[in-house]
């Protein structure tokens, strides 16, 4: 991973300087090609060669290299043409960066789609208009068809488009299958809920092009939520269909629980990759507390070490509290005060957050986090981000029958003081992990947010140019509505239940790359068995010693943080942050029809308070699925993102 990013970063810098002149194209491309070759050859490190699996992947990526060389050449010609016609050379040249990058062995198989997409994206208007003139359920379906059409019709590069065809055909069949389900008898579970036939076929398809990519989870595209619209020509009654749907939902829930049990129970080492793949599509309530802690990289994948690890981290948190609230430590009054103002304004609509014990817990967690992260400190909105963790971890202490009551019960009535401290600790560490991934959002000037907003506007410009132009005409600036989307990860836009479902996916998008960069930069502790990457990440999770905990200046902590983030920030940005921008784009474009007929005030007022009150998990899954598709289609657009 580090190997890949090094040379590319350099070439991208050169690229930025060069993009003013449109004639620079050829030289630029060849220099990028060169830099890619460097990265490609250096990726065949001794380590990779010794690993049979890795060398297989190299072989497969090698064959793809050839394809990509050719594709690169073709799109070079295209680019020159486009550069002349609309002068937007900047964006196009950057697409190519990703075209050439694609073969890198560490890249996700998903990226194999990029080459032909490079051709597709330039004629985006038909798809865009198709999308906008359909409601959001059917538009997704239209999208699939459009994708498969464009891909098959676009046979410039035979070998690589074979991959695409297979992918998209598979996808397409899958989706129509889901839709057809409603007109078919209820499927019964014959295999004891092991794996649905769709999932099986999907897996077997992917395995042929699947490499050892750390991020191969991304190939596990979202299982699409069932479409709730009933075909009017259907003869059966609403109730019948409802009943069928309920049975179906129940069946699939049982299946999912069994799958999670299979991954989590009686395992020495939990397969993190499997867990990510399956969690992307939602985690059953009963598994969520443990799964989230694993996904975020808090809980070690080595189950034998978990108990001891939790014990240590929970003690560390308590020591931190003891120290912070002892007399020798002077209180940071402005920070304390700001948190104090925000606690009563946190999820005011949910009774749970009105209980004094909960407010006290959150105050402690946020304050401790703030003083331990002085470069960021407490920023409004972090108070929102802490709550899904807290609320989810509470459910672990509730009787399964009461899990749905978590928003109404005072934790003091069902937990001991000790347990409450434990849950605070878990929440604190998971919040720390999450914020590590989005540090730039909260440091001075919030550069991370500004970048994401900019990326969003560029993305919308490409996906939905009409909407983009309309915003321009109305003088709507993206920052005016999207700032909050980035600052609170869209939490303000949805109800808590929906947010939690969304986080199943978001947490599945976190930290894998951090893991790999950690692996490549830190020598593995020889005393420990080589475990899954995640396990190593947990093991190398740097926590301040008691001494640094005590140092009031926290200078050492800051230093630690900065050095450890320098290597991985760039890579880190590309997972959760990048996906989030696509979710925001999908969210915005969902309202495109309505927004197109609104003026400035209408638009801002609408986006300030979008009609999502009734959104169900299905709606959010649809949104995440759309974002996923956009991400795979516009992967190249992100190559210049930071």
């Amino acid at each position, binding site marked *: 991973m580090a190997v890949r990013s090094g040379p590319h970063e350099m070439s991208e810098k050169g690229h930025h300087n060069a993009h003013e002149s449109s004639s620079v194209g050829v030289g630029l491309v060849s220099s990028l090609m060169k830099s890619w070759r460097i990265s490609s050859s250096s990726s065949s490190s001794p380590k990779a060669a010794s690993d049979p699996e890795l060398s297989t992947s190299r072989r497969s990526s090698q064959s793809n290299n050839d394809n990509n060389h050719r594709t690169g050449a073709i799109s070079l010609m295209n680019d020159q043409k486009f550069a002349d016609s609309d002068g937007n050379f900047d964006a196009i040249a950057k697409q190519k960066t990703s075209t050439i990058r694609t073969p890198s062995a560490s890249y996700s198989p998903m990226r194999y789609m990029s080459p032909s997409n490079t051709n597709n994206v330039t004629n985006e208007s038909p798809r865009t208009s198709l999308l906008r003139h359909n409601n959001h359920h059917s538009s997704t379906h239209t999208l699939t068809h459009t994708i498969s059409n464009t891909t098959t019709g676009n046979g410039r590069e035979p070998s690589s488009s074979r991959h695409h065809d297979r992918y998209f055909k598979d996808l397409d069949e899958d989706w129509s299958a889901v839709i057809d389900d409603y007109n078919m008898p209820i499927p019964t579970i014959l295999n004891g809920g092991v794996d649905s036939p769709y999932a099986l076929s999907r897996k077997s398809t992917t395995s042929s092009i699947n490499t050892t990519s750390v991020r191969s989870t991304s190939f596990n595209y979202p299982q699409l939520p069932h479409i709730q619209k009933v075909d009017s020509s259907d003869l059966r009654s609403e109730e019948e269909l409802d009943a069928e749907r309920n049975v179906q939902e129940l069946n699939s829930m049982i299946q999912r629980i069994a799958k999670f049990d299979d991954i989590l129970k009686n395992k020495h080492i939990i397969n993190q990759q499997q867990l990510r793949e399956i969690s992307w599509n939602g985690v059953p309530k009963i598994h969520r507390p443990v799964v989230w802690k694993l996904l975020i990289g808090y809980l070690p994948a080595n189950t034998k070490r978990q108990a001891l690890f939790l014990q240590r981290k929970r003690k560390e948190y308590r020591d931190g509290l003891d120290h912070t609230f002892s007399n020798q430590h002077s209180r940071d009054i402005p920070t304390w005060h700001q948190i104090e103002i925000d606690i009563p304004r946190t999820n005011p609509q949910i009774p749970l957050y009105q209980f004094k014990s909960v407010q006290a817990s959150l105050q402690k967690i946020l304050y401790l986090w703030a003083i331990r992260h002085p470069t960021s400190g407490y920023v409004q909105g972090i108070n929102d981000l802490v709550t899904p963790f807290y609320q989810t971890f509470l459910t672990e202490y509730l009787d399964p029958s009461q899990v749905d009551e978590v928003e109404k019960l005072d934790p003091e009535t069902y937990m001991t003081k000790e347990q409450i401290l434990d849950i605070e600790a878990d929440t604190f560490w998971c919040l720390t992990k999450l914020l590590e991934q989005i540090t730039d959002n909260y440091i001075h000037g919030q550069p991370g947010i500004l970048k994401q907003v900019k990326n969003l506007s560029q993305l919308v410009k490409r996906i939905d140019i009409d909407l983009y132009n309309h915003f321009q005409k109305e003088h709507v600036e993206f920052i*005016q509505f999207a700032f909050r989307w980035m600052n609170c990860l869209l939490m303000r836009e949805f109800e808590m239940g929906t947010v939690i479902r969304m986080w199943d996916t978001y947490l599945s998008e976190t930290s894998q790359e951090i893991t790999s960069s950690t692996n490549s930069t830190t020598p593995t502790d020889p005393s420990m068995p080589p475990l899954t990457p995640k396990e190593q990440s947990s093991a190398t999770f740097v926590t301040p010693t008691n001494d640094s905990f005590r140092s009031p200046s926290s200078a050492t902590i800051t230093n630690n943080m900065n050095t450890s983030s320098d290597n991985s920030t760039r890579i880190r940005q590309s997972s959760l942050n990048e996906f989030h921008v696509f979710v925001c784009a999908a969210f915005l474009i969902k309202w495109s029809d309505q927004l197109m007929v609104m003026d400035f005030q209408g638009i801002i007022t609408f986006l300030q308070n979008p009609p999502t009150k009734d959104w169900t998990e299905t709606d959010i899954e649809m949104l995440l699925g759309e974002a996923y598709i956009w991400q795979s289609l516009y992967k190249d657009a992100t190559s210049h993102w930071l």
Partner: protein
Amino acid sequence: MNNEDYGYDYDYLFKIVLIGDSGVGKSNLLSRFTTNEFNIESKSTIGVEFATRTIEVEGKKIKAQIWDTAGQERYRAITSAYYRGAVGALIVYDISKSGTYENCNHWLKELRDNADDNVAVGLIGNKSDLAHLRAVPTAEAKNFASENELLFTETSALNSENVDQAFRELITAIYQMVSKHQVDLGDSGNNAAAAPKGPTISLTPTPNENKKSSSSNCC
């Protein structure tokens, strides 16, 4: 501007910004004025939000478009962009928290640095219902206001005391300034005097400004 596209139901449109420390009640003043609502526990404002209300001043329909900003230091770099185009501002403090009053100087400076020179400004001491907790004497604030040529009102978003009045005074002051300005300007080419219908006071950047800002590279 394309006045024909939208049937304007107002003669003037004023952009007004609310500023002041976190928790002084800006969001509630806004909701009280625009929708007559008060939320004991509303969520903290992230980024900016706005709401509008149209009132009549001297026979003219004036649409006030009021922008609410977050008060935290961290956000100031970003919110400064929102001063652009504002013709009025209310600096809000909490009469029960002297710190929020002391910061008004800072807010005034930030406003002067970021907004147009002749923006009309009002000082608001909110939460007047908390008389038993008063920490800022009315006379002192009044003094500060007149020294700096600010309008001054004590309000309560909770019981709506003086809320309408505070906004109304500011809007009237803006209107008077604008109409005087128009007279001064004569028909110097601006469509303000010539076409009284539609947004006389622009709240958004002109297309040129917009182009400039959007083409600047972020990376």
